[in-house]
């Protein structure tokens, strides 16, 4: 594996935004990002000041409460050239919502910093494909996998088939197409709680499609959607496990995930 990536060569400072949810509930995902990027020649830093993107507040209508999270985000990542997060949803919030919150706070300095920072914030697959120019990360994962593209990656960030390009290049993988893949799984942040019945009805269809593929592993770029679909699959004793895209891409013959 090459260790001279364009990023390493230019001496860019790259930060990992683990996201609060992954930090607490799914630490294996950011760990996998660290391993994967290190293998690709990118040493990430983890600014400890980071907390949350604030999306949960914004999307529930609590914009005042989101403001401290936005300020913390700016403080933590301002000095980095690229910020990478293993979550399409959180990156979507940074790129599309932080500006509105800064405007509302009526703080021009914050707005300037937010506007400078948003375009430097990448979802993992975007960073690997667009910035590093890599589509084969040299991974090995000999399992039957199906991939759920997640709404915010698809329709907010428009990552297109970048995650699938990366998955297709994984050695040993048996990648099967998920029917009605572009349909929402029903997580939707606080929607999963506020409208639990509808959320579960949507998730039930998603989980049925996943089961129909015969996959062992359901992969996605967002652990929040995976927690919801995985929660259903687990309750159904389906025998299908959920895995973040990063963990599959980090997996090698020497160090399997």
């Amino acid at each position, binding site marked *: 594996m090459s260790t001279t990536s364009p990023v390493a060569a230019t001496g860019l400072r790259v930060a990992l935004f683990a996201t609060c949810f992954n930090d607490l509930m799914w*630490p294996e995902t950011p760990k996998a990002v660290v391993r994967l990027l290190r293998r690709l020649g990118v040493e990430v*830093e983890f600014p400890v000041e980071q907390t949350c993107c604030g999306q949960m507040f914004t999307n529930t209508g609590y914009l005042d409460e989101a403001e401290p999270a936005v300020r913390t985000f700016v403080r933590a990542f301002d000095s980095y050239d690229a910020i990478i997060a293993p979550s399409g949803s959180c990156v979507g919030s940074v790129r599309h919502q932080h500006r509105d919150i800064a405007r509302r706070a009526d703080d021009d300095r914050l707005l300037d910093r937010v506007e400078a920072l948003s375009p430097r914030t990448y979802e993992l697959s975007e960073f690997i494909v667009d910035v590093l120019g890599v589509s084969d990360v040299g991974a090995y994962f000999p399992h039957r996998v199906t991939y759920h593209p997640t709404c915010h990656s698809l*329709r907010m960030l428009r990552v297109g088939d970048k995650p699938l390009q990366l998955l297709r290049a994984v050695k040993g993988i048996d990648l099967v197409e998920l029917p009605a893949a572009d349909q929402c799984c029903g997580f939707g942040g606080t929607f999963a*709680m506020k*409208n639990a019945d509808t959320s579960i009805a949507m998730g039930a269809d998603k989980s049925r499609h996943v089961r129909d593929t015969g996959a062992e592993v359901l992969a996605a770029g967002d652990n929040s959607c995976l927690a919801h679909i995985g929660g259903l699959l687990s309750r159904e004793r389906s025998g299908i496990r959920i895995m973040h895209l990063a963990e599959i891409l980090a997996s090698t013959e020497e160090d399997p995930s």
Partner: protein
Amino acid sequence: MRERTTGTRQADGHPHVGITTTFLGMPTFQEAARVSLTDTVQRRNLAHATGVIREKRAAVVGELDNWEQLRLAAEAIKNRALFSLDEYLVEFEERATAAGATVHWARDAAEANRIVVDLARAKQAREVVKVKSMATQEIELNEALQAAGIDAWETDLAELIVQLGDDWPSHILVPAIHRNRSEVREIFLREMKKVGRPAPEDLTDDPPRLAEAARLHLREKFLRADFAVSGANFAIAETGSLVVVESEGNGRMCLSLPRTLVSVVGIEKVVPSWRDLEVMLQVLPRSSTGERENPYTSIWTGGAEGDGPQDVHIVLLDNGRTNVLADQVGRAALRCIRCSACLNVCPVYERAGGHAYGSIYPGPIGAVLTPQLRGTSSEIDQSLPYASSLCGACFDACPVRIDIPSLLVHLRTRVVEEHRGGVPKPEALAMKAAGWMFADHRRYEAAEKIASTGGKALRSPLLGRKEVLRQLPPPLNAWSGARDAPVPPSESFRSWWKRTDGGRLGPSEERE
């Protein structure tokens, strides 16, 4: 026949779901959805119907290589109209009047109804035939006519099904989308005879036979009707023309047979110029019925000598639209051309159904339009902005590029803001606490420590090495009702990073 269980019924039938002052409030979206999700027939009807229409739309949109340019053009045309609405309304009035139409203005539903009822009375009309129109649904015109002793006959097939079934619309384009063919047959057999020509006794549930029954039933009404009421899809300022887009020919019947025609038109229906039709008539049929062009489009300007209604009236309706226009973000919803593409792609609509939205405007656009038109004082209208997972499929399908997810978030903010100052709800307290926590990473770390300790305990042999939780205490049981929850890991990522220097130290080389 299944009973629709959502909503408080009026003494004489279906609940008030218009944009009127008689609106009394309905159960919240989540309560109504909890009931409608169990309606197995409706679930199947909706899944089938929305699936069919999604495919049709995708096929005809895919034929065009300039679809995105058309959307941008349609968005700009509607924005131009809205941003100079006063001028275009005046221009429209001037041109329509010059062409022989009488233009009325209505501040609200009551005023619009009064105008139509007075016109019908002046003509001594005992009955009116109606072209499907969201504006007249919105003002509950049929009820107003009925109160004045005038029968209003809906002539669109789906509206007829809804009216005969004493039901209410659950979709903008296909109001009876929640009904299947055998339900329609039952309604026709049971109800047609009460109000006119009965359904043929040997009626089957074959859609062509059902359509024929409607043809026969309504033909006598068309031929004798002297007074028609319509809406309009577009009002062209430059020429004073109105446009109605339809499929069945019931619209053409109403627009060309009676002597008097009254069209109730929301003020946001204005487009600036004649040529704008070339964009709108490309995007509307493809987005609504998934056709290149719908079977019939009628365009008329005042009255035409020797052809069709000679007494032509237009009622320009505000009914809350100017309040929407005043909201710099929310006004985007006024671009809506009622195509219903957003309903057809919406995973929430597909499952919960249109009635759960408690309004004649259901689905994603309803969730942003209803609370803006009606205000957010009732529980249902407060719940509507939350009736979405924010998946974004609606924005991608919208031919006038209304960013519905952003509008939903905007309206959620409005709902939250309106509650500030009073006694805070538990949610507001939790949000405040979490906001405080995320302001400083040390506070978040402290909370993580507690969670990790809990996780460690749950994973211990003593508690049976739990990996997942099957039951959570309230309010988290909303999650665990059908979904397992993961047990927090015993070490957070940031603790791991600190302990191993980002994985550079082995487990045996712990820091500290």
